[in-house]
């Protein structure tokens, strides 16, 4: 077991779970604007936290794998710059939208829809990046380059489609859209099948017995929502987010012990010695601070939101 990998991957799991819920919300804002309040009640306080976990993932990644920074820069910089532009667009448009009052043509509707479009495209870029990190399609470690044409294999495309289908399938659970209840289980099951198929297409070695954990958990969420009596459990936002984080965390066999199509052994590139000790010390101190702040948050949030009414 590689503790540094686990910490970095845990940060990624929470970030990815938050981003996936934002993608679910973005779909909702685009196709069901009249029921936006269900989406915005969740998205509006959460989008700021997503960015923070994203930054945590990036920084712990830099810390964990110093030897990978040069190859990552050579291979992924153009893709990362596109990601950054979309990230600023997404953050700026939702920050502008949150408290704006309508004047002229520009109001919250246009800005929230811009946020939704930026988030969806951002999601696509992230999926391209992740599928390359998992299967190695399009990546040449030897020449330090990435080709989108070489990336577009059956495995990569099915990976993107399967993940998006899962997001669409589970979105009604998160936002409790009971009118779509009957679609949840079939769409989610199809998403699971396509995702597993994509891993197999990328490399049969990716399918380990561990894969049954995320598969089962995903299907359990969908199944619990199918019955009104049990749906309350999974429509709880904190429960949903926690389970989604666990699902993503349990997918770590896709990139550990080897990533990029089994070509990159993670243990060999992980930091060691005094820096590894510092990594753990800082994680403990930062983790305690985070736990304290989250406790305060839970305590106050239990009394219900009440913004700066004027």
């Amino acid at each position, binding site marked *: 077991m590689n503790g540094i990998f686990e910490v970095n991957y845990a940060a990624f799991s929470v970030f990815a779970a938050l981003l996936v819920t934002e993608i679910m919300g973005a779909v909702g804002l685009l196709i069901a604007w009249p029921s936006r309040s269900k989406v915005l009640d969740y998205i509006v306080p959460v989008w700021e936290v997503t960015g923070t976990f994203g930054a945590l993932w990036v920084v712990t990644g830099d*810390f964990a794998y110093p030897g990978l920074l040069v190859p990552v820069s050579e291979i992924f*910089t153009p893709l990362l710059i596109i990601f950054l532009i979309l990230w*600023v667009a997404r*953050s700026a448009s939702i920050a502008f939208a949150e408290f704006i009052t309508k*004047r002229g043509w520009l109001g919250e509707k246009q800005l929230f829809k811009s946020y939704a479009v930026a988030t969806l495209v951002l999601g696509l870029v992230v999926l391209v990046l992740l599928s390359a990190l998992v299967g190695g399609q399009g990546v040449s470690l030897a020449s330090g380059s990435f080709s989108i044409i070489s990336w577009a294999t059956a495995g990569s495309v099915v990976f993107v489609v399967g993940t998006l289908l899962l997001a669409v399938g589970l979105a009604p659970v998160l936002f409790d859209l009971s009118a779509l209840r009957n679609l949840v289980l079939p769409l989610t099951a199809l998403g699971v099948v396509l995702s597993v198929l994509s891993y197999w297409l990328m490399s049969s070695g990716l399918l380990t017995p561990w894969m049954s954990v995320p598969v089962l958990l995903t299907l359990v969420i969908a199944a619990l929502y199918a019955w009104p009596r049990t749906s309350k459990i999974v429509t709880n936002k904190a429960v949903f987010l926690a389970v989604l984080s666990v699902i993503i965390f349990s997918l770590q066999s896709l990139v550990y012990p080897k990533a990029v199509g089994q070509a990159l052994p993670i243990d060999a590139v992980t930091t060691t010695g*005094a*820096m590894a000790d*510092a990594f753990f010390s800082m994680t403990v101190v930062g983790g305690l601070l985070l736990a304290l702040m989250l406790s305060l948050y839970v305590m106050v949030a239990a009394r219900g939101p*009440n913004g700066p*009414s004027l």
Partner: protein
Amino acid sequence: MLTFVRFLFAFTIGSHILLVSTSIALILLISISEFLAIRMHDPVYEALARRLSRVFVISFGVGTASGIVMAVELVGLFPSFMTLVASTGAMVLLYAEISAFFLEVLALVLYVYYWNSFRGRFSHWAVSVFVVVGTLASAVFITMLNAWMNTPNGFDISAFVSSGFKTVTGVEPFAAFLTVSTVSQVFHVLVTTLFAGSMVIGAYFAYWFVRSRDAGDKAMYSRALKILGAIAIVTIILAGISGSEEMGNLLVNQPLKYAALDGNTVPGTNLPDRFFGSIVNGSYVGGISIPGMQALLAKFETGTSMLPGLSQFPANTWPPLLVSTTFNVMTVGGLAVGLFLFVFFISFVRKGRPYESRRLLYIWIPAAVLAMLVYQLGWATDEVGRQPWIVYNVMTVAQAANTSDALLVPGVIIVLFYLAVVPATFYFYSRVFQGSKKEAPA
């Protein structure tokens, strides 16, 4: 391509600190306003804090996104530098910054979205202190990283250089928290950031105070200006003290940068402070000279110390000598804004109301532009003054940079994007602040 990489990062950081300086001053203004609202039972301060908290959400959202851009850009543009950072204690600073960031974001969510959910008013105000601490701590840690770039420590530098940047040994991960330049640089950057930010936000309120005919609005703007004026006066004094401290530090730890900034072509004692001249054929010509001032400003003594000169160092290690001019504009500009704030302070002491004086408020607006220029030039002077090094005496920018042509198109898009986002952010600050006016109790 190297020039483009330098330009791209300089442009990004220039845009970023524009957002960050206003953000830091803004949260301090919000916290002080709420504190005064509670202590003085003043509904105008209360409304000011509430309305500004909405603006701060925009500031935080865009500033954070821009910070992430910089973090990822560093990996993309200067991968060898980031590899060194990630292998040494400098990385610990970035990790500490993320902890500060979490403190800021969680406190902010509570502060803004759960305003009325606190049992006591002071409890809610205390959360704003957490946001202030988180925001300032982020700035402190990132400045510590910059101090480490100026005076690196915590690893075996000679072994690293002699191995061709391949082997990092003798790592002391927590040494980067306290390099020889950390204290003076953090002190200087913090006060100048608050100074520039408070002047810029003050300019906004000055403009609206002069323009507005509504007594309620004017009361709010004048209260904001009272707080911002106080912050600006205190920070300009501290900026002068810390600036002198910084020069003293350069004298000991980065003598080449010191020589370039002060235009010393040769070392000597009792050297003059020179302004707006230029170095031609190895001599400083033109401009204004104040005899014997250099040692007084940097070391609080007169003329006995030997001060460094460019001739002591190989010419290929000199920074661009333009830094002497940027340093002069920064110093003289800072003095000019200081003079304005001195008049503002005297007016206040003499029982005047400078924050309601149309004449002074008209001057505040160009003074704020000058303050931001001074602040930006401060960064430019620090960074250009370290050239050609990215990590002083360890690694040059050319050795650190990714010069792939693939960066060109996305880099240009980033520049164009920032050119749209930064003005849009300030526009939305104003629109959100003014948009909530009708509902305010003031």
